[in-house]
């Protein structure tokens, strides 16, 4: 934890030295460090058995995000305050995490009792962008204007949906795994049980497709599918999902022009280097500019990439910290994924397992999608890099995700220290 804060401080110090920039008010930095440290202590106090590594990783990533956002925007007209805003969002996220932990520290299972309500709320949240309050940014209608605050409902609804799927799949796990009929050689469960899953899934997916939010659609598609696979162990679901995904992608490719543009600029960005291919090419140029060791903080040209502080923040990291720095950052993400998976493995009941797994999978896939996108490994889909990218909804959402993981880990940790071990698929007393 101390290490994570030190790294952030060092980053800022480097920037201020290199750029001869005026320091952001130190008091804000103290607030940031203080809040995360208090949050860490608070969580240790409330959940003494919870995972010890998650919050330090979050601190490291948000700190890195702050450094990068500050570096990329402090001299940009009209955007100098972005790092400050992001710091405020981190405070809000910390507060939300703390409240979540405070209220649900003994019985987060209550969430599963409200799973249908959560599912409906999630779908309505996404649908809210179609109300007059919603508005469009960069061709995707995924913002809602609530007076003083604008937010992206999909960032929150996807957590609610993971809770729903975890609760529902845990409940119906056995019937879903049982094969009552088969279709074209694929064994299918009864419609009765499968229905709600498919319904919620289709509803949220459909809405996102209409919002033209490709990144989120991909998340909403892949995460429930992986949860279904984890719950039932049936690879057929994944295969069926894969086929559906291919068909769906092809259809969207044919229907939506912006999808065609995305795919075109992925396959051949040189075709229109100053137009549709500009962003991805600038990203690649910046990444290449970094080389093995990077240009050093503040010495790169990442500001040439449009929207570098949100979706493309990783390109800036790769440019200024180089292959080694970028790999280290990816390792931090992998460490989070590893801890999340471990929490899922250690969790006692199916619902908790699925919840932890679903959240972890969402975190990992989101990272893979956006980093893959900016490195031209896959077509680019607009989505944030968890904790690092600028974006209030994203930051708060990911803090909530971390909070839920902590809650799940607390229970498993307590059982373990109270002398229970995992054996033959169940917890038994030793």
């Amino acid at each position, binding site marked *: 934890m101390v290490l994570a804060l030190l790294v952030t401080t060092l980053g800022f110090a480097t920037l201020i030295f290199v*750029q*001869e920039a005026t320091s952001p008010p130190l008091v804000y930095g103290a607030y940031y460090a203080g809040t995360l440290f208090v949050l860490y202590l608070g969580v240790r106090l409330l959940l003494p058995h919870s995972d010890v590594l998650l919050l330090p990783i979050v601190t490291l990533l948000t700190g890195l995000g702050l450094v990068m956002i500050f570096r990329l925007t402090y*001299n940009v007209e009209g955007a100098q305050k972005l790092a400050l805003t992001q710091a405020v969002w981190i405070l809000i996220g910390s507060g939300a995490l703390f409240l979540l932990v405070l209220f649900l520290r003994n019985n987060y299972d209550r969430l599963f009792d409200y799973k249908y309500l959560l599912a409906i709320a999630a779908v309505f949240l996404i649908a809210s962008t179609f109300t007059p309050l919603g508005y469009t940014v960069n061709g995707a209608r995924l913002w809602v204007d609530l007076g003083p605050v604008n937010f992206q409902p999909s960032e929150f609804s996807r957590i609610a949906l993971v809770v729903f799927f975890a609760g529902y799949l845990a409940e119906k796990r056995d019937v879903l795994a049982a094969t009552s009929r088969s279709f074209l050689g694929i064994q299918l469960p009864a419609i009765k049980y499968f229905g709600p899953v498919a319904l919620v899934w289709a509803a949220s997916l459909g809405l996102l497709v209409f919002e033209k939010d490709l990144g989120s659609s991909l998340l909403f598609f892949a995460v429930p599918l*992986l949860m279904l*696979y*984890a*719950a039932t*162990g049936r690879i057929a679901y994944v295969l069926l999902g894969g086929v559906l995904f291919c068909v769906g992608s092809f259809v969207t490719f044919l229907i939506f022009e912006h999808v065609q543009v995305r795919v075109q600029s992925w396959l051949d960005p*040189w075709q229109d*280097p100053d137009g549709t291919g500009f962003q991805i*090419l600038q990203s*690649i*140029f*910046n*990444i*290449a*500019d*970094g*080389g*093995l060791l990077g240009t050093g903080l503040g010495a790169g*040209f990442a500001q*040439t990439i449009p929207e570098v502080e949100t979706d493309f923040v990783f390109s800036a990291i*790769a440019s200024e910290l*180089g*292959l080694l720095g*970028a*790999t280290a950052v*990816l*390792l931090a*993400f*992998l460490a989070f*994924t*590893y801890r999340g*998976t471990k929490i*899922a*493995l250690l969790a006692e009941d*199916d619902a908790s*397992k699925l919840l932890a*797994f679903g959240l972890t*999978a969402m975190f*990992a*896939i989101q*990272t*893979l999608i956006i*980093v*893959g996108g900016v*490195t*031209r*490994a896959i077509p680019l889909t607009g989505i944030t890099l968890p904790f690092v990218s600028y974006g209030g909804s994203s930051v708060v959402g990911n803090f909530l995700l971390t909070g839920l993981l902590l809650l799940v880990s607390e229970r498993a940790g307590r059982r373990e220290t109270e002398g229970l071990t995992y054996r033959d698929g169940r917890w038994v007393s030793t």
Partner: protein
Amino acid sequence: MNAHLKRTFYLFVAGFAGLVVMLAYWQVYSREALANNPENGFQTQRSISSPRGLILAGDGETVLAKSAKRGTPRGPVYDRVYPLGTPFSNVVGYWSTRYGATGIEISNNSDLSSVVGEPETLDDLINRATGGPQPGNNVVLTIDPGLQKLAYQELSASSTGRGSVVALNPKTGDILAMATSPSFDPNEVDENYPELANAPDAPLVDRATQSLYPPGSVFKVITAAAALEAGVSPEQHFFDSGAYELPGYTVHNFEGKDFGDVTFTRALAYSINVVFAKIAVNIVGARPLTEMALNFGFGDPYDDFSVPVSGSSVNSLPPEKWTTGTLAQTAFGQGEVQTNAFEMALVAGAIANDGELMEPRLVREVRSPDGIILDKPTPSVRRQALPQSTAETLNEMMQQVIIEGGLTEAEIEGMKVAGKTGTAESGNGEPHSWWITFAPADDPKIAMCVMIENGGRADEGALPIAARLMKAYLVDGV
């Protein structure tokens, strides 16, 4: 269920590993290729944060390009400024973060850009040790600033405003002037590039080196050289009947004249097509004529010259496949012969310099910012274009072009002057107007080619311009 979770986790690990591989691909494997990609402006971007060296004219004082410091929130940035602007832009070039670089700016970029590598002088070492700005080295050109400026003014004031001038020192190969019109202001390339690139009169093209035109009768000096080598003497008599019929092609003289019995010297002075066609067909032959042109630098793209040159050409077919009509037309610079002022100035220079074609050059020396000479190549011979005796004979004949041809305008008092006219059918509008010349013919200091696109008769378009430039350089001392 745990097995499934683990499997999925391994999938994620594979995904992350894949991303690292992808990063390594960009950051290590294709790093250099991407850095040099023309769409990638980072190298120039980085280079504007330190001052580039000066580009100086041949007098070592006139500044043609310099870096001007400008404060920005990100620290100082250096803009490239060209104090003398348009007349020099085809030589000096431009340095743009958006549109790349041309001319000396790119050919001598490693000299001009801020130094990397071993320190070359003590000041350099101290500068680097103290972390001060490290300006690039200064490049001193061979260009005579006054002559260059005057040449550009003459061209833009010519009848069509389209043309080029190349003047050089025949003994050293130093280019004294290389002007083209219309041209562009290098200070405004960033703002005007799209218009400049699309303008119908192509101001970005250096007509002196990159355009190719039929030379017409100026090419006769090459045919004459080949004829002398083939044993024709200046006093040998030929008969001009005004027309020379060949299978499928009949040669006529300029403006339909016929001259009767003439010496070879007079045939050159009066630029008699019929005589030159006869000599080429009956005495010289296609291969020796082609080889003589190649000796003078035709077919040579001058890859080591500072700015790009379009190589001149005699014909697309090998000489063995020419018809006699082709040979006859080639003899007086029509047919498929293509060249430019740069090549024809070199031809004039080689004849002036006893047949030695000097290596043409634009850069005389490179100096460190504190004035220490880092590189000063000595002039070198590129090729012996023709034997000294032949060159001397041709020199005499070219002096007679002015004396016998009555081109009094080209004369310079107290000096022997040599020259040759060219009025080339352009296939499109008025003929191109050419004039090559050098003086003093017995101790040449300057050789020059002036070419005016669609400028009409040689003695009305190119010659008067060249005469003024020659006098300005040799008599008035611009």
